[in-house]
C-alpha cells in the first residue's frame, strides 16, 4: 500500500527522562497509506514514540522527518506540522468546555482560518462519518467513552491530516464500546490514511495493520507483517508477551 518516499522517518532517535532511557536508538519509517501498530509491555516507550512524532516530546538525539522535512523545533512551523498530524489520545482529551461540534471546528476555524459556516458543515459531515452527528451540540461529559473517542477522531480528521497517531485509543473504554471505535479506525485505514496506532487490540492489528512493531525497554525489538508476527514471533520477549495477552 506504500507509495513513493516514506511519510514518517525516525532515524536513531534517543530520548531520556532524566536517567531513564525511554527510546533507545529507534529507527522506523512509515510509508504513505501505511498502518503501523505498535505493541509492547507497559512502560516500554510506545506512547513516547508516538508523541515524539508531532514533538509533544522533544528528542535528545537522532532525527525525525515528516513528509520529507525535518521536524521543526518551535513556532508557526511546528504548529503547522502538528496541524498535519492528527493525534488521538487514550483519555480523549476533548475540550471539556466546548460542545462536540465546537471541538471539531475549533481547529479549522482558528488554525486554518476557515469560515465558521464551512467548518461547521464539514464538522457535521465528519461527525456523521464517525456516527455521532446527533450528539453535535452536547458537551463531552454527556457522552459515553466510545462516543467521545469517536468525536476526538473527528476532531483530528477535521484538520485533514496527512497522518494520524493513536495512543491506546480504546483502552479507557468499556468493552462494548471498543468495537465502535475500532470500526471507525478500520474504515480510516481502508481509506488509505497513514496511521501509527499504539494498541492492545490484537484483532485490529491482525486485520487492519500493514506492519506490527513490538517494543520493549525503549527498543524496537520486532517489525513484521501481522500474520508473520502473530504466527511466529522471532524474539523471546515478544513470544512471552503474546502468550500473556492471548491466552485467557
Amino acid at each position: 500500500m506504500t507509495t513513493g518516499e516514506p511519510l514518517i522517518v525516525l532515524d536513531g532517535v534517543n530520548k531520556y527522562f532524566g536517567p531513564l532511557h525511554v527510546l533507545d536508538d529507534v529507527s522506523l519509517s512509515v510509508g504513505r497509506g501505511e498502518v503501523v501498530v505498535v505493541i509492547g509491555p507497559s512502560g516500554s516507550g510506545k506512547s513516547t514514540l508516538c508523541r515524539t512524532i508531532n514533538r509533544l516530546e522533544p528528542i535528545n538525539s537522532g532525527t525525525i522527518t515528516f513528509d520529507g522535512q525535518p521536524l521543526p523545533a518551535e513556532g508557526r512551523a511546528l504548529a503547522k506540522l502538528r496541524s498535519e498530524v492528527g493525534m488521538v489520545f487514550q483519555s480523549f482529551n476533548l475540550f471539556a468546555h466546548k460542545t462536540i461540534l465546537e471541538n471539531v471546528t475549533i481547529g479549522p476555524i482558528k488554525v486554518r482560518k476557515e469560515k465558521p459556516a464551512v467548518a461547521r458543515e464539514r464538522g457535521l459531515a465528519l461527525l456523521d462519518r464517525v456516527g455521532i452527528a446527533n450528539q453535535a451540540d452536547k458537551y463531552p461529559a454527556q457522552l459515553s467513552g466510545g462516543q467521545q473517542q469517536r468525536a476526538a477522531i473527528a476532531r483530528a480528521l477535521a484538520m485533514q491530516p496527512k497522518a494520524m497517531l493513536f495512543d491506546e485509543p480504546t483502552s479507557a473504554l468499556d468493552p462494548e464500546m471498543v468495537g465502535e471505535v475500532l470500526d471507525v479506525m478500520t474504515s480510516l485505514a481502508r481509506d488509505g490514511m497513514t496511521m501509527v496506532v499504539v494498541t492492545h487490540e490484537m484483532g485490529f492489528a491482525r486485520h487492519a495493520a500493514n506492519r506490527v512493531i513490538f517494543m520493549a525497554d525503549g527498543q524496537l525489538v520486532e517489525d513484521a507483517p501481522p500474520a508473520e508476527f502473530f504466527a511466529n514471533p522471532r524474539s523471546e520477549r515478544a513470544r512471552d508477551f503474546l502468550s500473556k495477552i492471548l491466552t485467557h
Partner: protein
Amino acid sequence: MSQQTSVLYDVPGPRQQRITLISSIIAGVALLVGAYFLIYRPLDEKGQFSMELWGPLVDPSNENFSLVWERIGLGFKNTLIAAALAIVASLVIGTLLAVLRIQLKSLTRRRFTGLATPVAYLLRGLSLLLSAVTRVCVEVFRGLPVVITIFFVARGFPEFGASFDTLWYLVIGLTIYNSVVIAEILRSGMEGLPGGQREAAEAIGLSPLQTTRMILLPQSFRIMLPALISQLVVVLKDTSLGFIISYEETLNIGKQIIGVLSNPIQVYVVIAVLFIVVNYSLSKLAQYLQRRLSQGRKTAGTPAQNPPPAALMSQAESTGQGL
C-alpha cells in the same frame, strides 16, 4: 519540563530559549533600576539605612544589641509556645470533631430498627439534633474572624468569672477557630478518599467507627498533612493577634522596642524576616511531604496532580488571620 508549566508552554526550541534569555536580562535590569529609584533612594534620603536605627538590631557591639535580641527571643518563644499549644489542642479537638461529624452523618441515616419504635425515634431525633448543632458550631466559628474570636474570648471569659493569663485567651481563641478548620480539613480528606476504601472496610465487616478510625482517618491525615502544616503556618501568623489582648508575642514586643528606639521600619523588617523564614521552611516541608506522599502513595488513589480540593481550600484559608 515540570508539570506546572507544561499546561501553558510547549517545550521551548532554540529561538524561544534565546528570546527568553534576552527578555530575562532586560527584565532583570528594569527591576534593579526600579528598586533603586522607588525603594532604595527614598529610604536612604530619609536616613532609614542609618546605623542609629539599625545598630541595635544588627551590630553586636551596640549597647542595646543583646537586650533587644533577648526581648525578641522572648517574644518569639512566646509566639512558639502559643502556636504549639494551639495547634496541639486544635488537632486533638479537630480530630474528635471530624470523627464525630462523620459518625453523626452515618448515624442520621440509621433507622435503629430492632429497637422499640419510640426509642428508635428518640435516637434518630437525637442524632439529627446533634449533627445540626455541630454543623452550626462549625459554620459560626469558621465564619467569624479569629481576631474577633480571640477578642471575645478575652473579653467574655472574665465576664463569667474565668480569668486566666492572656496566653490562655489567645490559645483558646486560636483553638476554637482552628479546631473547626482542622475538623473540616480532616473530614473533607475522609470524604475525598475513594468510596472504595470505606466499602472495602465495611465489606470485611468492620463497624462504622472502626472504619473511620482504622481506615479513613489515618489516610486522611496523610493526604491532608500538607494542608495541616499550612494550617500550622496560619496559627503561627495568627499568634501575632495576641497583641490586641496584650499577650507578649513577637509583634507586641516589637512594639515595645519601637516605643524605646523609634525604629519601626527596622524592627518590623526583622520581625517579618523571622516569620517568613520560619513559615517558608514550614511551607517547604509541606511541599516536600506532598511530593513524597504522591510518590509513596500510602493513601488510596488521589491522583498526584490533583490535590484534594480541601488542600486547596485550606491553602486559600491560610489567607492567614482569617478563615
